């Protein structure tokens, strides 16, 4: 029984990984800023609706949280769900077993 299907599905898409990269560069962005960075910095031609969908998938996985501030909505990265990966497959071993 896989505990985190949403997490792995969210991370399985290149555009979603770039969204997480850009939120790591600058946390707390509007949809417009995210779209601008994907278009201008990465040459991605995704529509605004597509980026919205990607953000919904990331939110579902707990990797992005949206916050309403006044009339605006900002998106924040939340890497805490990634902890479950290293709890499942620890990375503290020095040497791989032959």
């Amino acid at each position, binding site marked *: 029984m896989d505990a985190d299907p949403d997490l792995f599905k969210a991370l399985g898409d290149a555009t979603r990984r770039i969204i997480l990269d850009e939120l790591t560069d*600058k946390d707390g*962005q*509007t*949809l*417009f*800023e995210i779209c*601008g*960075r994907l278009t*201008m*910095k990465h040459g991605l031609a995704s529509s*605004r609706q597509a980026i919205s969908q990607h953000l919904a998938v990331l939110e579902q996985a707990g990797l992005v949280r949206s916050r309403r501030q006044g*009339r*605006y*909505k*900002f998106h924040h990265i939340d890497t805490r769900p990634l902890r479950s990966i290293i709890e499942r497959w620890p990375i503290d071993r020095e040497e791989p077993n032959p």
Partner: protein
Amino acid sequence: MRINITSVFVDDQAKALAFYTEKLGFIKKTDVPTGAARWLTVVSPADPDGVELLLEPDGHPAAGPFKKALAADGIPFTQFAVDDVYAEVERLKGLGVEFTQDATDMGPVVTAVLDDTCGNLIQLATMK
């Protein structure tokens, strides 16, 4: 045919005039009473005979939902050119102007997005 006017829908013309002149630094060009509202335009001091920005009342019922939807997604209604976005953001923040996007290097252009206090987001841009 030439483009002489562009407009922005504002919730209050007097408040808009104050913001667009005192904060952004434009100057009033035309101010004519037209019944309940005014034909009210501002221009850039760098181009006083250039394109005028009409501060247009947003009283139409469709304008409100449209402006709210754009603002929620952080989408600017229009864009103004500045020589140095980074410096302009600092200057405007000093005057209490709020930004939904700080100066950001987007490759060929550096942009920022501010709140005009009249229901719109405005993008500032410097082409490299």
